[in-house]
Protein backbone atom coordinates (compact mmCIF):
# COMPACT_ATOMS: atom_id res chain seq x y z
CA UNK A 1 0.00 0.00 0.00
CA UNK A 2 1.42 3.38 -0.93
CA UNK A 3 1.24 6.27 1.49
CA UNK A 4 0.95 9.25 -0.77
CA UNK A 5 0.44 12.24 1.47
CA UNK A 6 1.22 14.78 -1.21
CA UNK A 7 -0.45 17.93 -0.09
CA UNK A 8 -0.53 21.01 -2.23
CA UNK A 9 -0.85 22.98 1.00
CA UNK A 10 2.47 21.66 2.27
CA UNK A 11 4.33 24.95 2.40
CA UNK A 12 7.24 23.37 4.27
CA UNK A 13 7.84 20.95 1.41
CA UNK A 14 7.87 23.89 -1.01
CA UNK A 15 10.27 25.80 1.25
CA UNK A 16 12.57 22.78 1.51
CA UNK A 17 12.52 22.32 -2.28
CA UNK A 18 13.38 25.97 -2.86
CA UNK A 19 16.21 25.79 -0.32
CA UNK A 20 17.55 22.63 -1.96
CA UNK A 21 17.51 24.45 -5.29
CA UNK A 22 19.84 27.07 -3.86
CA UNK A 23 17.34 29.83 -3.03
CA UNK A 24 17.45 31.94 0.12
CA UNK A 25 14.21 31.14 1.93
CA UNK A 26 12.30 32.56 4.89
CA UNK A 27 9.20 31.14 6.55
CA UNK A 28 6.47 33.30 8.08
CA UNK A 29 3.98 31.71 10.48
CA UNK A 30 0.81 33.12 12.04
CA UNK A 31 1.43 32.61 15.77
CA UNK A 32 -1.49 34.47 17.32
CA UNK A 33 -4.80 35.87 16.13
CA UNK A 34 -7.53 38.04 17.59
CA UNK A 35 -10.95 38.75 16.12
CA UNK A 36 -11.92 37.80 12.61
CA UNK A 37 -8.48 37.01 11.23
CA UNK A 38 -8.62 35.26 7.88
CA UNK A 39 -6.03 32.55 8.54
CA UNK A 40 -5.62 30.55 11.77
CA UNK A 41 -2.48 30.24 13.88
CA UNK A 42 -0.07 27.88 12.15
CA UNK A 43 -0.74 29.22 8.64
CA UNK A 44 2.51 29.61 6.74
CA UNK A 45 3.98 31.72 3.97
CA UNK A 46 7.31 30.79 2.40
CA UNK A 47 9.27 33.56 0.71
CA UNK A 48 12.47 33.57 -1.33
CA UNK A 49 14.95 36.41 -1.77
CA UNK A 50 14.12 36.19 -5.48
CA UNK A 51 10.47 37.01 -4.72
CA UNK A 52 8.69 33.65 -4.89
CA UNK A 53 5.74 33.19 -2.51
CA UNK A 54 3.87 30.07 -1.39
CA UNK A 55 1.03 29.82 1.10
CA UNK A 56 -0.57 32.68 3.03
CA UNK A 57 -0.75 34.34 6.42
CA UNK A 58 -3.82 36.46 5.64
CA UNK A 59 -6.30 36.90 2.85
CA UNK A 60 -3.65 38.81 0.94
CA UNK A 61 -3.76 41.95 3.10
CA UNK A 62 -0.34 41.71 4.73
CA UNK A 63 1.61 39.30 2.52
CA UNK A 64 3.53 42.16 0.90
CA UNK A 65 4.70 43.58 4.22
CA UNK A 66 5.53 40.10 5.52
CA UNK A 67 7.57 39.40 2.38
CA UNK A 68 9.56 42.60 2.98
CA UNK A 69 10.22 41.57 6.59
CA UNK A 70 11.19 38.12 5.35
CA UNK A 71 13.82 39.62 3.05
CA UNK A 72 15.23 41.57 6.01
CA UNK A 73 15.26 38.40 8.10
CA UNK A 74 17.15 36.58 5.34
CA UNK A 75 19.69 39.40 5.11
CA UNK A 76 20.22 39.71 8.87
CA UNK A 77 19.75 36.05 9.78
CA UNK A 78 17.57 37.18 12.68
CA UNK A 79 13.93 36.20 13.22
CA UNK A 80 11.27 38.88 13.72
CA UNK A 81 7.88 38.96 15.41
CA UNK A 82 5.48 41.22 13.50
CA UNK A 83 2.21 42.72 14.72
CA UNK A 84 -0.58 43.62 12.34
CA UNK A 85 -3.76 45.36 13.43
CA UNK A 86 -6.81 46.86 11.87
CA UNK A 87 -6.11 49.18 8.98
CA UNK A 88 -7.71 52.53 8.41
CA UNK A 89 -9.45 51.95 5.10
CA UNK A 90 -8.62 55.48 3.99
CA UNK A 91 -4.93 55.37 4.86
CA UNK A 92 -2.25 53.74 2.77
CA UNK A 93 -1.00 51.54 5.55
CA UNK A 94 -0.76 47.83 5.79
CA UNK A 95 -3.35 46.19 7.95
CA UNK A 96 -6.31 43.89 8.06
CA UNK A 97 -9.50 45.38 6.73
CA UNK A 98 -11.40 42.42 8.18
CA UNK A 99 -10.95 43.93 11.63
CA UNK A 100 -8.71 41.18 12.97
CA UNK A 101 -5.25 41.30 14.48
CA UNK A 102 -2.43 38.84 13.88
CA UNK A 103 1.10 38.22 15.07
CA UNK A 104 3.44 36.73 12.46
CA UNK A 105 6.81 35.15 13.22
CA UNK A 106 9.28 35.51 10.36
CA UNK A 107 12.49 33.48 10.32
CA UNK A 108 15.15 32.63 7.78
CA UNK A 109 15.51 28.98 6.77
CA UNK A 110 19.14 28.59 7.72
Amino acid at each position, binding site marked *: *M*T*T*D*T*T*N*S*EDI*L*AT*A*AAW*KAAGESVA*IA*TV*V*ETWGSSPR*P*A*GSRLAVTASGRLAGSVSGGCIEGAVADAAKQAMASGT*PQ*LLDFGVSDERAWEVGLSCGGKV*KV*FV*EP*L*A
Partner: protein
Amino acid sequence: MKAETLARLQAERAAQRPVVLLTRLTDGAEHLWPQDTVPEALAEAAHAALGSEKAGSVSVDGEPWFIHPHNPPLRIIVVGAVHIAQAMAPMAAPLGFQMIVVDPRRAFATEERLPGVSLNTDWPDEAMATLKPDARTAVVTLTHDPKLDDPALDAALKSDAFYIGALGSRRTHAKRVARLNELGHGGAAIARIHAPVGLDIEAVTAPEIALSVMAEIVAARRGATLGAPRPLPAPAEGRVSIGISA
Protein backbone atom coordinates in the same frame (compact mmCIF):
# COMPACT_ATOMS: atom_id res chain seq x y z
CA MET B 1 13.97 27.52 11.16
CA LYS B 2 17.05 25.39 10.78
CA ALA B 3 17.14 23.34 7.59
CA GLU B 4 17.97 20.35 9.79
CA THR B 5 14.83 20.87 11.92
CA LEU B 6 12.75 21.19 8.76
CA ALA B 7 14.20 17.94 7.41
CA ARG B 8 13.46 16.12 10.69
CA LEU B 9 9.93 17.53 10.82
CA GLN B 10 9.23 16.46 7.23
CA ALA B 11 10.64 12.99 7.93
CA GLU B 12 8.29 12.52 10.89
CA ARG B 13 5.35 13.71 8.81
CA ALA B 14 6.29 11.43 5.92
CA ALA B 15 6.37 8.52 8.38
CA GLN B 16 2.86 9.59 9.52
CA ARG B 17 3.99 10.10 13.10
CA PRO B 18 2.41 12.92 15.13
CA VAL B 19 4.95 15.67 15.78
CA VAL B 20 4.86 19.12 17.36
CA LEU B 21 7.18 21.96 16.35
CA LEU B 22 8.05 24.20 19.32
CA THR B 23 9.55 27.61 18.49
CA ARG B 24 10.74 30.20 21.00
CA LEU B 25 9.52 33.51 19.63
CA THR B 26 12.31 35.57 21.17
CA ASP B 27 15.12 33.97 19.19
CA GLY B 28 13.74 31.16 17.01
CA ALA B 29 15.15 28.33 19.13
CA GLU B 30 13.23 25.16 18.24
CA HIS B 31 12.45 21.62 19.35
CA LEU B 32 10.39 18.72 18.04
CA TRP B 33 8.16 16.85 20.48
CA PRO B 34 8.07 13.98 21.41
CA GLN B 35 11.36 13.38 19.58
CA ASP B 36 13.37 15.89 21.67
CA THR B 37 13.56 16.17 25.44
CA VAL B 38 11.82 19.39 26.44
CA PRO B 39 10.75 20.98 29.75
CA GLU B 40 7.62 19.45 31.28
CA ALA B 41 5.42 22.51 30.64
CA LEU B 42 6.32 22.54 26.94
CA ALA B 43 5.67 18.81 26.63
CA GLU B 44 2.24 19.24 28.19
CA ALA B 45 1.38 22.09 25.82
CA ALA B 46 2.59 20.01 22.87
CA HIS B 47 0.53 17.00 23.95
CA ALA B 48 -2.58 19.16 24.33
CA ALA B 49 -2.03 20.76 20.92
CA LEU B 50 -1.93 17.38 19.18
CA GLY B 51 -5.27 16.55 20.81
CA SER B 52 -6.96 19.83 19.90
CA GLU B 53 -5.19 20.09 16.52
CA LYS B 54 -4.83 23.81 17.23
CA ALA B 55 -1.61 25.79 17.02
CA GLY B 56 -1.06 28.58 19.53
CA SER B 57 1.32 30.57 21.68
CA VAL B 58 2.06 29.77 25.34
CA SER B 59 4.30 31.37 27.93
CA VAL B 60 6.77 29.02 29.61
CA ASP B 61 9.10 30.41 32.29
CA GLY B 62 8.25 33.90 31.09
CA GLU B 63 9.20 33.12 27.49
CA PRO B 64 6.75 32.96 24.56
CA TRP B 65 6.72 29.68 22.63
CA PHE B 66 4.71 28.79 19.54
CA ILE B 67 3.26 25.30 19.69
CA HIS B 68 2.53 23.91 16.22
CA PRO B 69 1.04 20.39 16.05
CA HIS B 70 1.34 18.27 12.90
CA ASN B 71 -0.93 15.25 13.03
CA PRO B 72 -0.83 12.61 10.31
CA PRO B 73 -3.47 13.31 7.66
CA LEU B 74 -7.03 12.28 8.33
CA ARG B 75 -8.06 9.28 6.24
CA ILE B 76 -10.95 8.70 3.89
CA ILE B 77 -11.61 5.05 3.17
CA VAL B 78 -13.67 4.82 -0.01
CA VAL B 79 -15.23 1.48 -0.90
CA GLY B 80 -15.66 1.31 -4.67
CA ALA B 81 -13.05 2.46 -7.19
CA VAL B 82 -15.83 4.06 -9.18
CA HIS B 83 -16.19 7.30 -11.11
CA ILE B 84 -17.11 9.31 -7.98
CA ALA B 85 -14.02 7.95 -6.19
CA GLN B 86 -11.91 9.12 -9.13
CA ALA B 87 -13.41 12.60 -8.78
CA MET B 88 -12.82 12.63 -5.00
CA ALA B 89 -9.16 11.63 -5.30
CA PRO B 90 -7.67 14.96 -6.44
CA MET B 91 -9.70 16.85 -3.82
CA ALA B 92 -8.56 14.75 -0.88
CA ALA B 93 -4.89 15.72 -0.42
CA PRO B 94 -5.31 19.50 -0.61
CA LEU B 95 -8.09 19.19 2.01
CA GLY B 96 -5.70 17.33 4.30
CA PHE B 97 -6.93 13.78 3.75
CA GLN B 98 -5.16 10.62 2.74
CA MET B 99 -7.56 8.67 0.53
CA ILE B 100 -7.59 4.88 0.44
CA VAL B 101 -9.76 3.08 -2.08
CA VAL B 102 -10.96 -0.45 -1.36
CA ASP B 103 -12.27 -2.54 -4.24
CA PRO B 104 -11.66 -6.24 -4.86
CA ARG B 105 -12.72 -5.76 -8.48
CA ARG B 106 -9.27 -5.35 -9.96
CA ALA B 107 -10.61 -3.96 -13.21
CA PHE B 108 -11.73 -0.89 -11.25
CA ALA B 109 -8.97 -0.57 -8.67
CA THR B 110 -6.12 0.35 -10.96
CA GLU B 111 -3.29 2.82 -10.66
CA GLU B 112 -4.29 4.18 -14.06
CA ARG B 113 -7.80 5.06 -12.86
CA LEU B 114 -6.65 6.35 -9.47
CA PRO B 115 -3.09 7.64 -9.80
CA GLY B 116 -1.34 8.28 -6.50
CA VAL B 117 -4.18 6.83 -4.43
CA SER B 118 -3.63 3.99 -1.95
CA LEU B 119 -5.41 0.95 -3.38
CA ASN B 120 -6.55 -2.07 -1.40
CA THR B 121 -7.97 -4.98 -3.43
CA ASP B 122 -8.96 -7.15 -0.46
CA TRP B 123 -12.62 -7.83 0.26
CA PRO B 124 -14.00 -4.93 2.31
CA ASP B 125 -14.29 -6.92 5.57
CA GLU B 126 -10.62 -7.91 5.35
CA ALA B 127 -9.58 -4.46 4.15
CA MET B 128 -11.38 -2.79 7.05
CA ALA B 129 -9.74 -5.19 9.52
CA THR B 130 -6.36 -4.12 8.12
CA LEU B 131 -7.11 -0.41 7.84
CA LYS B 132 -8.73 -0.16 11.30
CA PRO B 133 -10.84 3.01 10.91
CA ASP B 134 -10.53 5.30 13.94
CA ALA B 135 -11.80 8.69 15.09
CA ARG B 136 -9.61 10.35 12.42
CA THR B 137 -11.15 8.30 9.60
CA ALA B 138 -14.13 8.81 7.29
CA VAL B 139 -15.69 5.82 5.53
CA VAL B 140 -17.69 6.20 2.31
CA THR B 141 -19.29 3.34 0.39
CA LEU B 142 -19.93 3.92 -3.30
CA THR B 143 -20.41 0.51 -4.93
CA HIS B 144 -24.22 0.14 -4.67
CA ASP B 145 -23.45 -3.56 -4.19
CA PRO B 146 -24.52 -4.91 -0.77
CA LYS B 147 -21.86 -7.63 -0.99
CA LEU B 148 -19.21 -4.91 -0.98
CA ASP B 149 -20.86 -2.01 0.86
CA ASP B 150 -22.46 -3.88 3.76
CA PRO B 151 -19.31 -5.44 5.26
CA ALA B 152 -17.60 -2.05 5.10
CA LEU B 153 -20.54 -0.30 6.78
CA ASP B 154 -20.71 -3.06 9.40
CA ALA B 155 -17.04 -2.48 10.25
CA ALA B 156 -17.40 1.31 10.12
CA LEU B 157 -20.34 1.23 12.55
CA LYS B 158 -18.25 -0.84 14.97
CA SER B 159 -15.48 1.79 14.77
CA ASP B 160 -15.10 5.40 15.96
CA ALA B 161 -15.07 6.71 12.36
CA PHE B 162 -15.97 10.41 12.49
CA TYR B 163 -18.02 10.15 9.30
CA ILE B 164 -19.84 7.31 7.57
CA GLY B 165 -21.57 7.86 4.24
CA ALA B 166 -23.32 5.50 1.85
CA LEU B 167 -24.27 6.19 -1.76
CA GLY B 168 -27.76 5.18 -2.79
CA SER B 169 -31.29 6.51 -2.93
CA ARG B 170 -33.55 6.63 0.12
CA ARG B 171 -35.24 3.45 -1.12
CA THR B 172 -31.88 1.69 -1.44
CA HIS B 173 -30.95 2.97 1.99
CA ALA B 174 -34.16 1.63 3.55
CA LYS B 175 -33.28 -1.85 2.31
CA ARG B 176 -29.72 -1.38 3.54
CA VAL B 177 -30.98 -0.35 6.98
CA ALA B 178 -33.00 -3.56 7.17
CA ARG B 179 -29.90 -5.63 6.38
CA LEU B 180 -27.79 -3.71 8.91
CA ASN B 181 -30.50 -4.22 11.52
CA GLU B 182 -30.17 -7.94 10.93
CA LEU B 183 -26.46 -7.59 11.62
CA GLY B 184 -27.38 -6.13 15.02
CA HIS B 185 -27.07 -2.38 14.36
CA GLY B 186 -29.81 -0.39 16.06
CA GLY B 187 -31.30 3.02 15.36
CA ALA B 188 -28.53 5.07 16.97
CA ALA B 189 -25.88 3.27 14.94
CA ILE B 190 -27.86 3.56 11.71
CA ALA B 191 -28.29 7.30 12.34
CA ARG B 192 -24.53 7.72 12.02
CA ILE B 193 -24.77 6.87 8.32
CA HIS B 194 -25.12 9.85 6.01
CA ALA B 195 -27.43 8.54 3.34
CA PRO B 196 -28.06 9.56 0.68
CA VAL B 197 -24.43 10.60 0.89
CA GLY B 198 -23.29 14.21 0.53
CA LEU B 199 -24.68 17.68 1.08
CA ASP B 200 -27.80 18.50 -0.88
CA ILE B 201 -26.43 20.66 -3.68
CA GLU B 202 -28.58 18.92 -6.33
CA ALA B 203 -25.41 17.22 -7.56
CA VAL B 204 -25.73 15.37 -10.86
CA THR B 205 -22.28 14.63 -12.28
CA ALA B 206 -19.61 12.54 -10.58
CA PRO B 207 -17.44 15.58 -9.77
CA GLU B 208 -20.49 17.36 -8.30
CA ILE B 209 -21.33 14.34 -6.13
CA ALA B 210 -17.67 14.11 -5.10
CA LEU B 211 -17.79 17.78 -4.10
CA SER B 212 -20.94 17.27 -2.04
CA VAL B 213 -19.40 14.26 -0.27
CA MET B 214 -16.12 16.04 0.43
CA ALA B 215 -18.03 19.09 1.72
CA GLU B 216 -20.06 16.87 4.05
CA ILE B 217 -16.88 15.20 5.35
CA VAL B 218 -15.27 18.60 5.98
CA ALA B 219 -18.45 19.74 7.77
CA ALA B 220 -18.32 16.65 9.98
CA ARG B 221 -14.63 17.19 10.68
CA ARG B 222 -15.14 20.84 11.61
CA GLY B 223 -18.30 20.20 13.61
CA ALA B 224 -20.51 22.37 11.42
CA THR B 225 -24.14 22.50 12.49
CA LEU B 226 -25.70 21.82 9.12
CA GLY B 227 -29.40 22.32 8.91
CA ALA B 228 -29.37 25.05 11.55
CA PRO B 229 -29.93 28.59 10.33
CA ARG B 230 -26.83 30.72 10.14
CA PRO B 231 -26.58 33.24 12.99
CA LEU B 232 -26.10 36.36 10.85
CA PRO B 233 -27.86 37.58 7.68
CA ALA B 234 -29.05 34.36 6.11
CA PRO B 235 -29.05 34.03 2.33
CA ALA B 236 -32.50 34.06 0.82
CA GLU B 237 -32.39 30.36 0.05
CA GLY B 238 -30.04 29.18 2.79
CA ARG B 239 -31.38 25.65 2.74
CA VAL B 240 -28.68 23.25 3.92
CA SER B 241 -29.59 19.77 4.92
CA ILE B 242 -27.64 16.62 5.48
CA GLY B 243 -27.86 14.07 2.73
CA ILE B 244 -31.44 14.59 1.64
CA SER B 245 -31.65 14.75 -2.11
CA ALA B 246 -34.77 15.23 -4.11
